Every structure is written in structure tokens, then in C-alpha cells.
């Protein structure tokens, strides 16, 4: 059996009348980078904070490295690193002092130079925290999370507010961590980030996991190929196709059976002597899959209410 670092069954979280998390299951294995993806308010942070031990759950089973995080045990905290969304560090200490302060809390911390190396703050080691740029502060957040050489690292929206260069830098950093065998639970609302970094992605919406798979499987799943082309306005496509036309007149068909549908389409075009200009076949990006799921989800909710 694979080595599970996080096991969650039937997790619920209720805030008064609001059900923020509605029964989710998760299983994250050692060495995996797992991304929890979803729009704001989907329940990502609530879920992660329950796993971190910052919040209690309303129902369900949770095991993190074999511990119940709700019990707030030091032995668990010594093995996990947490990078929260908000920075809260002493502004008058230097980068090296800040990391050292946190290293002191753990039995077997990572050497200071190694931490600085991984997060790319070597040149800032003697700089005061308050003088760091936003991106550098975020790196310091990660550094603090890494100080104890954790087996499991929680990264809550690590690149929100970064410029593109800083994001690339952070991605390299996360890849470095993965190479060190760390298990990482990443929350993000950037789809490209999940696609770029994660071994597996769970998409969360309104407190539920609506899809879970590897990024490549998510985007290559049957329904996720699109055929785009242009045809003269008067042409009537075979009735079986559900199509969407955008403002520029480009037609798009989403297909679950590419070979079959492409054949039907091209046969029809040849028979009717219609030319399919700019014909392209492409996989949907994770972003499109995500939007499609969001639409479906909204529809489902409308129908049920």
C-alpha cells in the first residue's frame, strides 16, 4: 500500500448556517505535489486550515502523517511546514534571524544556508524584513515554512500577487522542494500554476471536490477536445452537433469522440462542398476545463433550486 501522508474521509465544516466544506475525501501520497484548485470561497482554505490544525472540523475523518491535526500535537507540527496566505513576521529582524528564530523551534532544522538557497534569498540574508519587496517577503514566508525541514508542506496561494518573473521563480522553488521528496499541498486559483507544478489536481467548488485527476488526465478526458473552424453563414451543419459561434464567426464544437465527429464533419463538408476554414483541433487547457466545470456546476445548482 502506498504511503499516505494525508487521508481525509467525509470532511464537513459548518459555519453557523453555511456549509463551507460538504463532505470531501482526499488521499495524498508521500512525495506528491497536490493542488487544490478552485475559485475564492470554494472552501480550499477552510479545508487546508483543518488539515493544518488551525480549525476544527464539523464531521469526518482526518489523518495527517498519522495524527489527528485537531489535537494540536507538537510532534505533528515538528514534521509539517505551513505557509499561510498572510505574512506576519517581525519587521525589524533580518532575513537570517527570522529563519533562525523559526529553525530553533524544530528538533532537526534545515541548515540556514540551504533554506536561503532553496528560496533564493541568499543576497538578502542581512536585510531587515520590512525592507523586502512583496515577492521577497513571500519567499521568506516559504523559508519559514521550510525551516524545520518538514516532510509535508502546506502552501496556501504561494504566488498570489506575484509578477510573472517572481511566479516563475516561485515555481522553480517548488520544483526544487519536490525533488527533495517533500509532500506539498498547494492551494491556488491559478490554473497554469496547478498544471505546471502538480502531480494531481482536485478542483473544489462550493465545498465539494468536483474533479480530481492528474493535470494531463483532467484536460484530456473525453469531453475536453475542441474543434474550431469557420464556415459560410448560410451553411447548415449536421444536426447532431452542439456548436457555439463566437463574435468573430468562429465555430466551436466540443467533442467526446474526436475521430467519429471529425469524420462526420469532414464528410459533410466534402459532400456539401463547404470549406472549413482555419480548422483546428485542440485539447482544452485546464482553464477551459475549469470554466466548463464551473458552468456545469452553476447549471446544476440552478436546476436543483
Amino acid at each position, binding site marked *: 500500500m502506498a504511503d499516505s501522508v494525508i487521508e481525509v474521509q467525509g470532511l464537513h465544516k459548518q459555519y453557523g448556517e453555511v456549509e463551507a466544506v460538504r463532505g470531501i475525501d482526499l488521499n495524498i501520497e508521500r512525495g506528491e505535489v497536490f493542488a487544490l484548485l478552485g475559485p475564492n470561497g470554494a472552501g480550499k482554505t477552510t479545508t487546508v486550515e483543518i488539515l*493544518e490544525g*488551525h480549525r476544527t472540523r464539523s464531521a469526518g475523518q482526518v489523518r495527517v502523517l498519522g495524527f489527528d491535526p485537531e489535537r494540536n500535537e507538537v*510532534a505533528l507540527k515538528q514534521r509539517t511546514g505551513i505557509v499561510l496566505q*498572510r*505574512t506576519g513576521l517581525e519587521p*525589524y529582524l533580518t532575513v537570517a*534571524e527570522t529563519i533562525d528564530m523559526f529553525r530553533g523551534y*524544530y528538533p532537526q532544522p534545515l541548515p540556514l544556508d540551504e533554506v536561503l538557497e532553496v528560496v533564493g534569498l541568499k543576497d538578502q540574508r542581512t536585510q531587515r524584513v520590512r525592507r523586502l519587496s512583496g515577492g521577497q517577503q513571500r519567499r521568506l514566508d516559504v523559508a519559514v515554512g521550510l525551516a524545520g525541514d518538514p516532510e509535508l508542506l502546506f502552501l496556501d496561494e504561494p504566488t498570489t500577487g506575484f509578477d510573472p518573473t517572481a511566479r516563475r521563480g516561485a515555481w522553480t522553488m517548488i520544483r526544487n522542494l519536490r525533488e527533495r521528496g517533500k509532500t506539498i499541498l498547494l492551494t491556488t486559483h491559478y490554473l497554469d500554476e496547478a498544471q505546471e507544478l502538480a502531480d494531481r489536481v482536485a478542483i473544489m467548488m462550493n465545498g465539494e471536490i468536483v474533479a480530481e485527476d492528474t493535470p494531463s488526465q483532467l484536460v484530456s478526458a473525453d469531453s475536453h477536445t475542441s474543434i474550431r473552424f469557420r464556415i459560410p453563414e448560410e451553411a447548415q451543419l449536421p444536426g447532431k452537433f452542439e456548436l457555439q459561434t463566437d463574435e468573430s464567426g468562429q465555430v466551436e464544437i466540443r467533442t467526446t469522440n474526436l475521430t467519429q465527429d471529425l469524420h462526420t464533419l469532414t464528410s459533410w463538408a466534402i459532400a456539401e462542398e463547404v470549406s472549413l476554414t482555419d480548422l483546428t483541433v485542440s485539447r482544452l487547457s485546464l482553464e477551459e476545463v475549469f470554466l466548463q466545470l464551473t458552468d456545469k456546476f452553476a447549471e446544476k445548482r440552478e436546476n436543483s433550486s
Partner: protein
Amino acid sequence: MRSLKLALRQLKYNERAFRRNPAAAFFTIGFPLIFLVILNVIFGNRTIDLGDRVISGATFYIPAIVTLTVVNSCYTSVAMSWVYDRDSGLLKRIRGAPLPAWAFLLGRITYVVLLMVVLATIVVVFGRLFYDVAIPGATMPAVLVSLAIGAFTFCALALALASFVPNSDAAPAVVNGTILPLLFISEVFIPPDAGTPDWVEKVSLVFPVQHLSKALQTGFNPLETGAGFEPLHLGVISAWGIAGLILTLRFSSWEPRV
């Protein structure tokens, strides 16, 4: 043992952060002295009738400013910094680290208490040098006990108050709003023979500030023949401290409130 070591390390970082913010450090240290000098300039030449004895203005203001020092170091600064650190997410971050909560808190409290001792010493030495106010001798243990109980109580009340301060923007207003009026009615800034109405005196006796200033007045009284302990005053102060502690344990949180 390990946690105690962690608390000590915490102390070191607190001290370093304090030292590196010179403007804040200067005013923290200068604040009691500024009040001491101003109040002495205004009231120093007159005598003050404490009821059972008549003392010089300067002899009154040394223990009064020591009281102010306890309140500032323990109440004002602990409440403000706790709310700021909670809002900035520092407390939550510490909570996620394998540092026991009490070790973190102990580092904090030890630090403000040391700072309080340093400030009180400066005030007392300053009074001896410039105002010829005697440093307590036989009553020194009573002074130290009053300071210790005062420190405990005002730290506990600060943490309790912090639980009810919604955010760091509100902190200065709430903290000052709760303590400044008390400092005015509790024989810290204004001497007791200034014509304070009786009912004001009665109101102030409900709260701990007046009791601390009275306990310290006895400790600093050069004519005091006994050990200078004021069990009744110390009892009232402690009761407030215990109430503060209970409220803190019940309502304090480490989470930023948005």
C-alpha cells in the same frame, strides 16, 4: 526544559526587534521620565496631603510614575502588540510551529517585565539624583511584590482586553480609552488632595490602578516603619489579574479577525 530554552530565545529576538526601532525605544524609555519631569515642574514645589501624612510633590510622583511604568509596559504595550501580532498573522504562524503557546507568551511577558523593571529603576534613580527622593530600603520587598503582582495583573488584563479588540486599527483607541481615564482618577497624574470629589475616588477604588498606586506610595514612604505591605490593595489587584487570566483563557484567539 526545552520550552524554557525556547522562551529565552524568544526573549532575545524580542529585545533585538525593540532595539532596532530606535524611535519607539526612545519614547518607551523616555515616556515615564517626560511625565515625571512635567508633573514635578507643575506640582513639585508643593506638598501633598495623603491623609495620614504630608509629603513633597517629588516624593509623591516617583511611585506614581512607577505605577505609570507598570501600566504602560504591561497593559498598553502588551495589549497593542498582541492585537497587532494577531492581525498581522504572526500569532497564527507561531501557532502552526512546534512552539508551545505558553513558551511564546512567557518570552513576551518576561520581556515586558524586564523592560518594566529597567524603566522603574531609571525613574527611581532619576528621582534620587534630581529630586532627592529616597530609594526604598526596608520596604523594598513590598515594592517588588507590588510590582510583580501589578505586572501579572496588567499583563493578564491586557491579553483579556486584546480578545475584545476587533482589529489593530481600533487598538490604540480602545487601549488608551480604557486606561487613560483610570490614570487620571487613580492618583497617578493628579494628587489625591487636588479636590477630587468623593464619588470619583470611590469609582476609582473599584479598579486596580488606584490600588497599585496606593500600595507603591506606602512602599516609597520614607516614614514607613513596617514592611510596607498593603494586603488589601494587593488583594484587589490580584483579583483583577485572576479575572483577566480567566477571560484570556476563555476568549483569546490567535487568528486575525478580518
